[in-house]
Protein backbone atom coordinates (compact mmCIF):
# COMPACT_ATOMS: atom_id res chain seq x y z
CA UNK A 1 0.00 0.00 0.00
CA UNK A 2 1.10 3.61 -0.42
CA UNK A 3 3.13 5.33 2.23
CA UNK A 4 0.36 7.75 3.16
CA UNK A 5 -2.14 4.98 3.66
CA UNK A 6 0.43 3.20 5.84
CA UNK A 7 0.68 6.33 7.94
CA UNK A 8 -3.07 6.63 8.07
CA UNK A 9 -3.33 3.06 9.18
CA UNK A 10 -0.68 3.57 11.85
CA UNK A 11 -2.46 6.61 13.19
CA UNK A 12 -5.85 5.00 13.27
CA UNK A 13 -4.74 1.83 15.04
CA UNK A 14 -6.30 2.11 18.50
CA UNK A 15 -3.55 0.25 20.31
CA UNK A 16 -1.01 2.81 19.18
CA UNK A 17 -2.79 5.39 21.21
CA UNK A 18 -3.23 3.61 24.50
CA UNK A 19 -0.78 2.38 27.04
CA UNK A 20 2.08 3.99 28.92
CA UNK A 21 3.91 4.69 25.71
CA UNK A 22 0.95 5.19 23.42
CA UNK A 23 0.38 8.39 21.48
CA UNK A 24 -1.87 9.82 24.14
CA UNK A 25 0.70 9.36 26.84
CA UNK A 26 3.41 10.73 24.60
CA UNK A 27 1.31 13.79 23.79
CA UNK A 28 0.68 14.27 27.46
CA UNK A 29 4.37 14.26 28.28
CA UNK A 30 5.18 16.57 25.39
CA UNK A 31 2.56 19.06 26.58
CA UNK A 32 3.62 18.72 30.19
CA UNK A 33 7.28 19.33 29.42
CA UNK A 34 6.50 22.28 27.16
CA UNK A 35 4.09 23.87 29.60
CA UNK A 36 6.51 23.68 32.51
CA UNK A 37 9.31 25.17 30.44
CA UNK A 38 7.19 27.96 28.95
CA UNK A 39 5.55 28.97 32.20
CA UNK A 40 8.94 29.15 33.90
CA UNK A 41 10.30 31.11 30.94
CA UNK A 42 7.41 33.57 31.11
CA UNK A 43 8.00 34.20 34.79
CA UNK A 44 11.74 34.64 34.30
CA UNK A 45 11.62 36.38 30.94
CA UNK A 46 8.83 38.82 31.67
CA UNK A 47 10.14 39.41 35.16
CA UNK A 48 13.66 40.27 34.10
CA UNK A 49 12.74 41.85 30.80
CA UNK A 50 10.13 44.08 32.39
CA UNK A 51 12.40 45.16 35.19
CA UNK A 52 15.22 46.02 32.85
CA UNK A 53 12.89 47.67 30.38
CA UNK A 54 11.40 49.73 33.14
CA UNK A 55 14.74 50.98 34.39
CA UNK A 56 16.14 51.24 30.91
CA UNK A 57 19.38 49.52 31.76
CA UNK A 58 21.09 46.58 30.20
CA UNK A 59 19.88 46.82 26.64
CA UNK A 60 23.21 45.81 25.15
CA UNK A 61 23.57 42.84 27.46
CA UNK A 62 20.01 41.72 27.05
CA UNK A 63 19.59 41.85 23.36
CA UNK A 64 22.97 40.44 22.46
CA UNK A 65 22.98 37.90 25.26
CA UNK A 66 19.56 36.64 24.28
CA UNK A 67 20.51 36.33 20.66
CA UNK A 68 23.70 34.52 21.56
CA UNK A 69 21.74 32.12 23.75
CA UNK A 70 19.64 31.07 20.81
CA UNK A 71 22.72 29.87 19.01
CA UNK A 72 23.23 27.13 21.56
CA UNK A 73 22.02 23.87 20.05
CA UNK A 74 19.32 22.39 22.24
CA UNK A 75 20.28 18.83 21.48
CA UNK A 76 23.80 19.26 22.81
CA UNK A 77 22.52 21.20 25.77
CA UNK A 78 20.02 18.58 26.84
CA UNK A 79 22.62 15.85 26.74
CA UNK A 80 25.16 17.99 28.58
CA UNK A 81 22.69 18.70 31.35
CA UNK A 82 21.42 15.15 31.49
CA UNK A 83 24.81 13.68 32.17
CA UNK A 84 25.62 16.01 35.06
CA UNK A 85 26.01 13.97 38.26
CA UNK A 86 23.42 16.13 40.05
CA UNK A 87 20.88 15.46 37.38
CA UNK A 88 21.73 11.82 36.85
CA UNK A 89 21.01 11.10 40.48
CA UNK A 90 17.51 12.57 40.33
CA UNK A 91 14.57 10.30 39.84
CA UNK A 92 13.06 12.64 37.28
CA UNK A 93 16.48 13.65 36.03
CA UNK A 94 15.66 13.28 32.38
CA UNK A 95 12.59 15.43 32.71
CA UNK A 96 14.50 18.07 34.62
CA UNK A 97 17.28 18.15 32.07
CA UNK A 98 14.79 18.47 29.25
CA UNK A 99 12.82 21.13 31.09
CA UNK A 100 15.94 23.20 31.73
CA UNK A 101 16.92 22.96 28.10
CA UNK A 102 13.46 23.96 26.90
CA UNK A 103 13.47 26.78 29.42
CA UNK A 104 16.73 28.04 27.95
CA UNK A 105 15.16 27.88 24.51
CA UNK A 106 12.02 29.75 25.52
CA UNK A 107 13.53 32.57 27.55
CA UNK A 108 15.32 34.61 24.83
CA UNK A 109 12.26 35.52 22.71
CA UNK A 110 10.16 36.25 25.78
CA UNK A 111 12.83 38.26 27.53
CA UNK A 112 13.67 40.27 24.43
CA UNK A 113 10.05 41.02 23.66
CA UNK A 114 9.26 41.96 27.24
CA UNK A 115 12.22 44.32 27.30
CA UNK A 116 11.45 45.91 23.94
CA UNK A 117 7.73 46.03 24.64
CA UNK A 118 8.24 48.00 27.79
CA UNK A 119 10.88 50.30 26.39
CA UNK A 120 8.65 51.03 23.42
CA UNK A 121 5.90 52.52 25.51
CA UNK A 122 5.20 56.05 24.27
CA UNK A 123 7.40 58.40 26.33
CA UNK A 124 4.63 60.94 26.67
CA UNK A 125 2.35 58.27 28.15
CA UNK A 126 5.05 57.28 30.60
CA UNK A 127 5.72 60.93 31.43
CA UNK A 128 2.02 61.58 32.03
CA UNK A 129 1.78 58.55 34.31
CA UNK A 130 4.76 59.60 36.41
CA UNK A 131 3.59 63.20 36.53
CA UNK A 132 0.19 62.22 37.88
CA UNK A 133 1.83 60.51 40.82
CA UNK A 134 2.14 56.84 39.92
CA UNK A 135 4.74 54.93 41.86
CA UNK A 136 7.12 52.78 39.81
CA UNK A 137 5.21 49.59 40.64
CA UNK A 138 1.94 51.18 39.60
CA UNK A 139 3.49 52.46 36.41
CA UNK A 140 4.73 49.00 35.53
CA UNK A 141 1.52 47.16 36.37
CA UNK A 142 -1.06 49.65 35.18
CA UNK A 143 0.61 51.18 32.16
CA UNK A 144 3.78 49.51 30.89
CA UNK A 145 2.80 45.87 31.12
CA UNK A 146 -0.66 46.24 29.57
CA UNK A 147 0.84 48.19 26.71
CA UNK A 148 3.70 45.72 26.27
CA UNK A 149 1.38 42.73 26.42
CA UNK A 150 0.86 42.30 22.67
CA UNK A 151 4.59 42.10 22.09
CA UNK A 152 5.07 39.83 25.08
CA UNK A 153 2.35 37.52 23.79
CA UNK A 154 4.07 37.42 20.43
CA UNK A 155 7.22 36.30 22.21
CA UNK A 156 5.35 33.71 24.23
CA UNK A 157 3.72 32.39 21.10
CA UNK A 158 7.02 32.06 19.24
CA UNK A 159 8.69 30.46 22.25
CA UNK A 160 5.84 28.03 22.79
CA UNK A 161 5.80 26.78 19.26
CA UNK A 162 9.57 26.33 19.26
CA UNK A 163 9.46 24.50 22.58
CA UNK A 164 6.58 22.22 21.62
CA UNK A 165 8.36 21.25 18.45
CA UNK A 166 11.80 20.85 20.00
CA UNK A 167 10.62 18.94 23.04
CA UNK A 168 10.76 15.83 20.92
CA UNK A 169 14.46 15.56 21.56
CA UNK A 170 13.78 14.90 25.22
CA UNK A 171 13.05 11.37 24.13
CA UNK A 172 16.74 10.94 23.44
CA UNK A 173 17.53 11.16 27.13
CA UNK A 174 14.58 9.12 28.27
CA UNK A 175 11.47 11.27 28.43
CA UNK A 176 8.91 9.29 26.49
CA UNK A 177 7.18 12.06 24.59
CA UNK A 178 6.42 12.00 20.87
CA UNK A 179 10.15 11.86 20.21
CA UNK A 180 9.95 8.32 21.50
CA UNK A 181 8.07 7.07 18.46
CA UNK A 182 10.18 9.21 16.14
CA UNK A 183 13.42 7.70 17.39
CA UNK A 184 11.91 4.23 17.67
CA UNK A 185 10.61 4.45 14.13
CA UNK A 186 14.01 5.62 12.89
CA UNK A 187 15.74 2.74 14.68
CA UNK A 188 13.42 0.11 13.33
CA UNK A 189 13.10 1.73 9.92
CA UNK A 190 9.35 1.95 10.51
CA UNK A 191 8.78 5.09 8.47
CA UNK A 192 5.08 5.09 9.10
CA UNK A 193 5.73 5.24 12.81
CA UNK A 194 8.24 8.03 12.46
CA UNK A 195 6.04 10.03 10.19
CA UNK A 196 2.95 9.57 12.35
CA UNK A 197 4.70 10.83 15.42
CA UNK A 198 6.22 13.74 13.55
CA UNK A 199 2.84 14.55 12.11
CA UNK A 200 1.33 14.68 15.56
CA UNK A 201 4.09 17.01 16.73
CA UNK A 202 3.30 19.32 13.84
CA UNK A 203 -0.40 19.27 14.61
CA UNK A 204 0.31 19.98 18.25
CA UNK A 205 2.54 22.91 17.38
CA UNK A 206 -0.12 24.36 15.10
CA UNK A 207 -2.79 24.01 17.74
CA UNK A 208 -0.61 25.71 20.31
CA UNK A 209 0.04 28.53 17.89
CA UNK A 210 -3.65 28.93 17.19
CA UNK A 211 -4.55 28.82 20.86
CA UNK A 212 -2.01 31.46 21.78
CA UNK A 213 -2.96 33.66 18.85
CA UNK A 214 -6.53 33.66 20.10
CA UNK A 215 -5.39 34.28 23.64
CA UNK A 216 -3.18 37.14 22.47
CA UNK A 217 -6.06 38.80 20.71
CA UNK A 218 -8.30 38.37 23.71
CA UNK A 219 -5.71 39.86 26.02
CA UNK A 220 -4.82 42.80 23.82
CA UNK A 221 -6.15 46.02 25.30
CA UNK A 222 -8.99 47.25 23.16
CA UNK A 223 -7.62 50.64 22.40
CA UNK A 224 -4.34 49.39 21.03
CA UNK A 225 -5.35 47.07 18.19
CA UNK A 226 -3.54 48.97 15.46
CA UNK A 227 -0.38 49.33 17.49
CA UNK A 228 -0.64 45.62 18.17
CA UNK A 229 -0.45 44.63 14.54
CA UNK A 230 2.69 46.69 14.09
CA UNK A 231 4.18 45.36 17.30
CA UNK A 232 3.54 41.78 16.35
CA UNK A 233 5.21 42.26 13.01
CA UNK A 234 8.17 43.86 14.69
CA UNK A 235 8.32 41.14 17.32
CA UNK A 236 8.16 38.22 14.96
CA UNK A 237 10.55 40.06 12.68
CA UNK A 238 13.10 39.95 15.47
CA UNK A 239 12.53 36.23 15.68
CA UNK A 240 12.95 35.51 12.03
CA UNK A 241 16.11 37.52 11.73
CA UNK A 242 17.83 35.42 14.28
CA UNK A 243 16.24 32.04 13.62
CA UNK A 244 18.57 29.09 13.97
Amino acid at each position, binding site marked *: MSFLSQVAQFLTTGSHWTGTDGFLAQLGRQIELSAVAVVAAVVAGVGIGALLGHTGRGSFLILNGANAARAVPSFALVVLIAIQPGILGLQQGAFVAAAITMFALAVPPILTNAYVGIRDVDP*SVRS*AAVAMGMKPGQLLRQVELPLALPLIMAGVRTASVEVVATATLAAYIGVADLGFDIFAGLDTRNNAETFSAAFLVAILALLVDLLLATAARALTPA*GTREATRAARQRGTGLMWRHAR
Partner: protein
Amino acid sequence: MIQFEAVSKQYGTGPYAVENFNLEVADGELCVLVGPSGGGKTTILRMVNRMEQPTAGRVLVDGHDIAKVDPVELRRRTGYVIQQAGLFPHLKVADNVASVPRLLGWDRDRVQDRVTEMLELVGLDPGLYAGRYPNELSGGQAQRVGVARALAGDPPVLLMDEPFGAVDPIARSRLQQEFLALQERLHKTVMFVTHDVDEAVTMGDRIAVVSQGGVLQQYATPAEVLGQPATPFVADFIGADRGLRRLAVTPIEVADLYTPPVVRPNATIAEARAAVAADGTHWAAVLGDDGRLLGWVEPGRLADGPDATGNSSTVAKYMRPFVARVSLDASLKTAFAEMLQNDAAWVAVLDNDHYLGVLTPDNLWAALRRSVGGEPVTV
Protein backbone atom coordinates in the same frame (compact mmCIF):
# COMPACT_ATOMS: atom_id res chain seq x y z
CA MET B 1 0.97 80.11 45.17
CA ILE B 2 4.18 79.17 43.46
CA GLN B 3 7.54 80.72 44.21
CA PHE B 4 10.88 80.26 42.52
CA GLU B 5 13.83 81.38 44.65
CA ALA B 6 17.16 81.69 42.84
CA VAL B 7 16.46 78.47 40.97
CA SER B 8 19.18 77.10 38.72
CA LYS B 9 19.50 73.95 36.69
CA GLN B 10 22.90 72.95 35.46
CA TYR B 11 23.72 69.80 33.55
CA GLY B 12 26.94 68.43 34.94
CA THR B 13 29.49 71.19 34.84
CA GLY B 14 28.24 72.36 31.52
CA PRO B 15 25.73 74.95 30.43
CA TYR B 16 22.92 76.22 32.57
CA ALA B 17 19.44 75.38 31.37
CA VAL B 18 18.09 77.79 33.97
CA GLU B 19 20.14 80.31 35.91
CA ASN B 20 19.04 82.19 38.99
CA PHE B 21 15.35 82.27 38.17
CA ASN B 22 13.00 84.17 40.48
CA LEU B 23 9.24 84.31 40.06
CA GLU B 24 6.10 84.41 42.12
CA VAL B 25 2.74 83.25 40.84
CA ALA B 26 -0.20 84.35 42.97
CA ASP B 27 -3.09 82.09 43.94
CA GLY B 28 -5.66 81.79 41.20
CA GLU B 29 -3.41 83.50 38.70
CA LEU B 30 -2.71 82.26 35.20
CA CYS B 31 0.99 82.88 34.58
CA VAL B 32 2.27 82.29 31.07
CA LEU B 33 5.91 81.47 30.47
CA VAL B 34 6.66 82.60 26.96
CA GLY B 35 9.89 82.65 25.03
CA PRO B 36 11.84 81.01 22.26
CA SER B 37 11.96 77.22 22.03
CA GLY B 38 14.61 75.59 24.16
CA GLY B 39 14.89 78.56 26.43
CA GLY B 40 14.26 76.66 29.64
CA LYS B 41 10.54 77.31 30.05
CA THR B 42 9.57 73.64 30.12
CA THR B 43 12.40 72.87 32.54
CA ILE B 44 11.14 75.58 34.86
CA LEU B 45 7.57 74.29 34.60
CA ARG B 46 8.58 70.73 35.32
CA MET B 47 10.32 71.78 38.49
CA VAL B 48 6.95 72.51 40.04
CA ASN B 49 5.94 68.87 39.99
CA ARG B 50 9.49 67.63 40.50
CA MET B 51 9.81 66.04 37.11
CA GLU B 52 13.02 68.12 37.08
CA GLN B 53 15.14 68.92 40.13
CA PRO B 54 16.85 72.28 40.47
CA THR B 55 20.58 72.13 41.09
CA ALA B 56 20.35 75.29 43.16
CA GLY B 57 17.63 77.35 44.74
CA ARG B 58 14.17 76.40 45.99
CA VAL B 59 10.71 76.00 44.58
CA LEU B 60 7.89 76.63 47.02
CA VAL B 61 4.26 75.73 46.58
CA ASP B 62 1.95 77.24 49.19
CA GLY B 63 4.99 78.22 51.17
CA HIS B 64 6.41 74.70 51.39
CA ASP B 65 9.74 73.76 49.87
CA ILE B 66 8.72 70.98 47.52
CA ALA B 67 12.12 69.34 47.74
CA LYS B 68 11.08 68.24 51.22
CA VAL B 69 7.73 66.84 50.14
CA ASP B 70 7.10 63.31 48.85
CA PRO B 71 7.16 63.73 45.07
CA VAL B 72 4.39 61.20 44.50
CA GLU B 73 2.08 63.06 46.86
CA LEU B 74 3.03 66.37 45.27
CA ARG B 75 2.27 65.11 41.78
CA ARG B 76 -1.13 63.78 42.79
CA ARG B 77 -1.96 67.30 43.86
CA THR B 78 -0.65 68.90 40.68
CA GLY B 79 -2.39 68.77 37.33
CA TYR B 80 -0.16 68.32 34.30
CA VAL B 81 -1.21 68.76 30.69
CA ILE B 82 1.24 68.17 27.87
CA GLN B 83 1.15 68.78 24.16
CA GLN B 84 0.63 65.20 23.08
CA ALA B 85 -1.94 64.66 25.84
CA GLY B 86 -0.25 61.40 26.86
CA LEU B 87 -3.57 59.63 27.29
CA PHE B 88 -3.36 55.94 28.18
CA PRO B 89 -4.20 54.23 24.90
CA HIS B 90 -5.34 51.02 26.54
CA LEU B 91 -7.91 52.71 28.74
CA LYS B 92 -11.23 54.27 27.88
CA VAL B 93 -11.69 58.00 28.24
CA ALA B 94 -13.57 57.51 31.52
CA ASP B 95 -10.75 55.43 32.97
CA ASN B 96 -8.19 57.96 31.79
CA VAL B 97 -10.01 60.77 33.55
CA ALA B 98 -10.44 58.59 36.64
CA SER B 99 -6.69 58.03 36.97
CA VAL B 100 -5.81 60.52 39.69
CA PRO B 101 -8.99 60.05 41.77
CA ARG B 102 -8.27 56.34 41.82
CA LEU B 103 -4.67 56.96 42.84
CA LEU B 104 -6.05 59.14 45.62
CA GLY B 105 -8.22 56.27 46.75
CA TRP B 106 -11.65 57.75 46.12
CA ASP B 107 -14.55 55.31 46.25
CA ARG B 108 -16.14 54.13 43.05
CA ASP B 109 -19.25 56.30 43.12
CA ARG B 110 -17.32 59.43 43.82
CA VAL B 111 -14.95 58.62 40.98
CA GLN B 112 -17.83 57.96 38.61
CA ASP B 113 -19.52 61.27 39.44
CA ARG B 114 -16.27 63.15 39.11
CA VAL B 115 -15.58 61.67 35.67
CA THR B 116 -18.99 62.75 34.42
CA GLU B 117 -18.52 66.19 35.93
CA MET B 118 -15.08 66.64 34.36
CA LEU B 119 -16.16 65.55 30.91
CA GLU B 120 -19.03 67.98 30.97
CA LEU B 121 -16.69 70.69 32.20
CA VAL B 122 -14.47 70.33 29.16
CA GLY B 123 -17.39 70.18 26.79
CA LEU B 124 -17.52 66.47 26.05
CA ASP B 125 -20.83 64.63 26.37
CA PRO B 126 -20.12 61.83 28.85
CA GLY B 127 -22.69 59.62 27.19
CA LEU B 128 -20.84 59.85 23.92
CA TYR B 129 -17.22 59.99 25.00
CA ALA B 130 -16.78 58.14 28.27
CA GLY B 131 -16.61 54.75 26.59
CA ARG B 132 -14.34 55.72 23.74
CA TYR B 133 -10.66 54.97 23.42
CA PRO B 134 -8.06 57.67 22.80
CA ASN B 135 -7.39 56.44 19.30
CA GLU B 136 -11.00 57.26 18.45
CA LEU B 137 -10.63 60.92 19.38
CA SER B 138 -9.60 63.92 17.35
CA GLY B 139 -6.66 66.03 18.51
CA GLY B 140 -8.89 68.62 20.10
CA GLN B 141 -11.01 66.01 21.87
CA ALA B 142 -7.92 64.23 23.16
CA GLN B 143 -6.59 67.48 24.54
CA ARG B 144 -9.89 68.13 26.31
CA VAL B 145 -9.69 64.71 27.91
CA GLY B 146 -6.14 65.57 28.93
CA VAL B 147 -7.38 68.69 30.68
CA ALA B 148 -10.24 66.77 32.30
CA ARG B 149 -7.81 64.18 33.55
CA ALA B 150 -5.49 66.84 34.95
CA LEU B 151 -8.34 68.53 36.81
CA ALA B 152 -10.08 65.36 38.01
CA GLY B 153 -8.20 65.22 41.30
CA ASP B 154 -9.12 68.88 41.95
CA PRO B 155 -5.51 70.00 42.23
CA PRO B 156 -4.89 73.58 43.31
CA VAL B 157 -2.08 73.92 40.79
CA LEU B 158 -2.23 73.21 37.07
CA LEU B 159 0.82 72.95 34.83
CA MET B 160 0.34 73.18 31.09
CA ASP B 161 3.14 72.69 28.57
CA GLU B 162 2.09 73.94 25.14
CA PRO B 163 -1.20 72.08 25.57
CA PHE B 164 -2.84 73.45 22.46
CA GLY B 165 0.18 73.30 20.19
CA ALA B 166 -0.66 70.10 18.37
CA VAL B 167 -4.10 71.25 17.35
CA ASP B 168 -5.24 73.20 14.29
CA PRO B 169 -5.63 77.00 14.73
CA ILE B 170 -9.41 77.01 14.81
CA ALA B 171 -9.61 74.28 17.41
CA ARG B 172 -6.78 75.93 19.31
CA SER B 173 -8.63 79.23 19.50
CA ARG B 174 -11.73 77.46 20.72
CA LEU B 175 -9.79 75.50 23.33
CA GLN B 176 -8.14 78.71 24.56
CA GLN B 177 -11.46 80.48 25.00
CA GLU B 178 -13.04 77.50 26.69
CA PHE B 179 -10.13 77.13 29.02
CA LEU B 180 -10.33 80.80 29.96
CA ALA B 181 -14.01 80.33 30.74
CA LEU B 182 -13.10 77.30 32.84
CA GLN B 183 -10.46 79.26 34.69
CA GLU B 184 -13.04 81.96 35.42
CA ARG B 185 -14.99 79.33 37.31
CA LEU B 186 -12.23 77.33 38.89
CA HIS B 187 -9.52 79.90 39.71
CA LYS B 188 -6.70 77.37 39.67
CA THR B 189 -3.15 78.55 40.00
CA VAL B 190 -1.91 77.89 36.49
CA MET B 191 1.52 77.96 34.89
CA PHE B 192 1.26 77.82 31.14
CA VAL B 193 4.20 77.41 28.77
CA THR B 194 4.05 78.54 25.16
CA HIS B 195 6.31 79.95 22.49
CA ASP B 196 3.41 81.75 20.82
CA VAL B 197 3.15 85.41 21.78
CA ASP B 198 -0.48 85.64 20.72
CA GLU B 199 -1.41 82.70 22.89
CA ALA B 200 0.49 84.23 25.81
CA VAL B 201 -1.30 87.52 25.39
CA THR B 202 -4.69 85.83 25.11
CA MET B 203 -4.30 83.50 28.06
CA GLY B 204 -2.17 85.22 30.64
CA ASP B 205 -3.08 87.29 33.65
CA ARG B 206 0.63 87.94 33.71
CA ILE B 207 3.27 86.98 31.20
CA ALA B 208 6.83 85.98 32.06
CA VAL B 209 9.07 86.46 29.05
CA VAL B 210 11.91 83.98 29.40
CA SER B 211 14.97 83.95 27.18
CA GLN B 212 17.73 81.40 26.70
CA GLY B 213 19.06 80.02 29.95
CA GLY B 214 15.82 80.70 31.77
CA VAL B 215 16.51 84.39 32.08
CA LEU B 216 13.43 86.34 33.12
CA GLN B 217 13.21 89.39 30.89
CA GLN B 218 9.91 90.79 32.03
CA TYR B 219 7.01 89.72 34.21
CA ALA B 220 3.94 91.87 33.77
CA THR B 221 0.41 92.02 32.42
CA PRO B 222 -0.02 91.51 28.68
CA ALA B 223 -0.82 95.18 28.15
CA GLU B 224 2.35 96.23 29.93
CA VAL B 225 4.53 93.73 28.14
CA LEU B 226 3.15 94.86 24.82
CA GLY B 227 3.05 98.55 25.57
CA GLN B 228 6.20 98.93 27.62
CA PRO B 229 8.62 96.11 26.85
CA ALA B 230 11.26 96.12 29.56
CA THR B 231 14.18 94.99 27.44
CA PRO B 232 15.13 94.92 23.77
CA PHE B 233 14.74 91.16 23.88
CA VAL B 234 11.10 91.47 24.84
CA ALA B 235 10.44 94.07 22.17
CA ASP B 236 12.17 91.87 19.62
CA PHE B 237 10.43 88.72 20.69
CA ILE B 238 7.00 90.25 20.45
CA GLY B 239 7.90 91.76 17.16
CA ALA B 240 6.77 94.74 15.21
CA ASP B 241 3.15 93.74 15.62
CA ARG B 242 3.03 94.61 19.28
CA GLY B 243 1.12 97.76 18.58
CA LEU B 244 -1.58 95.75 16.87
CA ARG B 245 -1.42 93.10 19.56
CA ARG B 246 -2.12 95.73 22.17
CA LEU B 247 -5.47 96.26 20.57
CA ALA B 248 -6.41 92.74 21.55
CA VAL B 249 -5.71 93.24 25.22
CA THR B 250 -7.19 96.69 25.65
CA PRO B 251 -10.83 96.82 26.62
CA ILE B 252 -13.33 99.42 25.48
CA GLU B 253 -14.24 101.92 28.12
CA VAL B 254 -17.26 104.17 28.12
CA ALA B 255 -15.04 107.19 28.59
CA ASP B 256 -13.46 106.45 25.19
CA LEU B 257 -16.73 106.70 23.34
CA TYR B 258 -18.00 109.52 21.24
CA THR B 259 -21.69 110.29 21.48
CA PRO B 260 -23.07 111.89 18.36
CA PRO B 261 -26.30 113.89 18.43
CA VAL B 262 -29.43 111.80 18.71
CA VAL B 263 -32.66 112.13 16.76
CA ARG B 264 -35.89 110.23 16.77
CA PRO B 265 -37.07 108.37 13.70
CA ASN B 266 -40.08 110.58 13.32
CA ALA B 267 -38.03 113.76 13.36
CA THR B 268 -37.87 115.72 10.13
CA ILE B 269 -34.75 116.16 8.11
CA ALA B 270 -34.73 119.81 8.99
CA GLU B 271 -34.67 118.98 12.68
CA ALA B 272 -31.90 116.49 12.12
CA ARG B 273 -29.88 119.03 10.24
CA ALA B 274 -30.27 121.48 13.06
CA ALA B 275 -29.16 118.93 15.65
CA VAL B 276 -26.12 118.04 13.64
CA ALA B 277 -25.17 121.63 13.01
CA ALA B 278 -25.46 122.46 16.70
CA ASP B 279 -22.93 119.76 17.49
CA GLY B 280 -20.57 120.71 14.72
CA THR B 281 -20.59 117.29 13.10
CA HIS B 282 -22.11 115.68 10.04
CA TRP B 283 -24.35 112.90 11.18
CA ALA B 284 -26.66 111.77 13.95
CA ALA B 285 -27.66 108.52 15.54
CA VAL B 286 -31.28 107.51 15.38
CA LEU B 287 -32.67 106.09 18.58
CA GLY B 288 -36.13 104.72 19.19
CA ASP B 289 -38.25 105.72 22.13
CA ASP B 290 -36.88 102.83 24.15
CA GLY B 291 -33.32 103.97 23.55
CA ARG B 292 -32.56 101.27 21.05
CA LEU B 293 -30.21 102.09 18.24
CA LEU B 294 -32.06 102.03 14.95
CA GLY B 295 -29.62 103.56 12.53
CA TRP B 296 -27.90 106.74 11.50
CA VAL B 297 -28.54 109.63 9.20
CA GLU B 298 -26.39 112.18 7.40
CA PRO B 299 -28.73 115.08 6.87
CA GLY B 300 -26.30 117.20 4.86
CA ARG B 301 -26.55 114.88 1.93
CA LEU B 302 -30.27 114.64 1.80
CA ALA B 303 -32.82 116.72 0.06
CA ASP B 304 -35.20 118.64 2.23
CA GLY B 305 -38.61 119.07 0.86
CA PRO B 306 -42.04 117.69 0.58
CA ASP B 307 -42.34 114.11 -0.61
CA ALA B 308 -45.07 112.91 -2.86
CA THR B 309 -47.68 113.24 -0.18
CA GLY B 310 -46.66 116.74 0.62
CA ASN B 311 -45.04 116.20 4.06
CA SER B 312 -41.51 117.04 4.98
CA SER B 313 -39.31 113.99 4.81
CA THR B 314 -38.69 112.20 8.06
CA VAL B 315 -35.48 110.76 9.33
CA ALA B 316 -36.94 107.27 9.24
CA LYS B 317 -37.23 107.45 5.49
CA TYR B 318 -33.56 108.18 4.96
CA MET B 319 -32.14 106.33 7.92
CA ARG B 320 -29.39 103.82 7.23
CA PRO B 321 -28.76 100.77 9.39
CA PHE B 322 -25.91 100.68 11.87
CA VAL B 323 -24.15 97.57 10.71
CA ALA B 324 -20.92 97.75 12.68
CA ARG B 325 -21.63 96.95 16.32
CA VAL B 326 -19.65 95.59 19.24
CA SER B 327 -20.42 94.74 22.79
CA LEU B 328 -18.87 96.81 25.57
CA ASP B 329 -16.87 93.84 26.86
CA ALA B 330 -15.11 93.37 23.54
CA SER B 331 -11.52 94.46 22.97
CA LEU B 332 -10.38 97.36 20.84
CA LYS B 333 -9.21 94.79 18.34
CA THR B 334 -12.70 93.42 17.88
CA ALA B 335 -14.06 96.93 17.50
CA PHE B 336 -11.47 97.79 14.88
CA ALA B 337 -12.09 94.54 13.07
CA GLU B 338 -15.79 95.34 12.93
CA MET B 339 -15.03 98.71 11.42
CA LEU B 340 -12.82 97.25 8.74
CA GLN B 341 -15.14 94.36 8.08
CA ASN B 342 -18.08 96.63 7.43
CA ASP B 343 -16.09 99.35 5.76
CA ALA B 344 -17.45 101.75 8.31
CA ALA B 345 -15.90 104.84 9.85
CA TRP B 346 -17.38 104.05 13.21
CA VAL B 347 -18.70 101.20 15.27
CA ALA B 348 -21.54 101.34 17.73
CA VAL B 349 -20.86 100.12 21.24
CA LEU B 350 -23.70 98.43 23.04
CA ASP B 351 -24.15 97.05 26.51
CA ASN B 352 -26.50 94.19 25.71
CA ASP B 353 -29.00 96.12 23.65
CA HIS B 354 -28.41 99.42 25.29
CA TYR B 355 -26.68 101.96 23.05
CA LEU B 356 -23.77 103.72 24.73
CA GLY B 357 -21.90 105.53 22.04
CA VAL B 358 -19.61 105.11 19.12
CA LEU B 359 -15.94 104.37 18.47
CA THR B 360 -14.23 106.08 15.58
CA PRO B 361 -10.66 105.40 14.45
CA ASP B 362 -9.55 108.58 16.22
CA ASN B 363 -10.90 107.75 19.60
CA LEU B 364 -9.83 104.16 19.21
CA TRP B 365 -6.27 105.35 18.83
CA ALA B 366 -6.68 107.66 21.82
CA ALA B 367 -7.95 104.71 23.85
CA LEU B 368 -4.94 102.64 22.89
CA ARG B 369 -2.54 105.33 24.00
CA ARG B 370 -4.46 105.71 27.22
CA SER B 371 -3.81 102.06 27.97
CA VAL B 372 -0.13 102.70 28.52
CA GLY B 373 -0.47 106.09 30.06
CA GLY B 374 0.23 108.10 26.97
CA GLU B 375 -0.56 111.80 27.10
CA PRO B 376 -4.08 112.42 25.87
CA VAL B 377 -4.01 114.01 22.47
CA THR B 378 -6.94 115.80 21.04
CA VAL B 379 -7.43 115.43 17.35
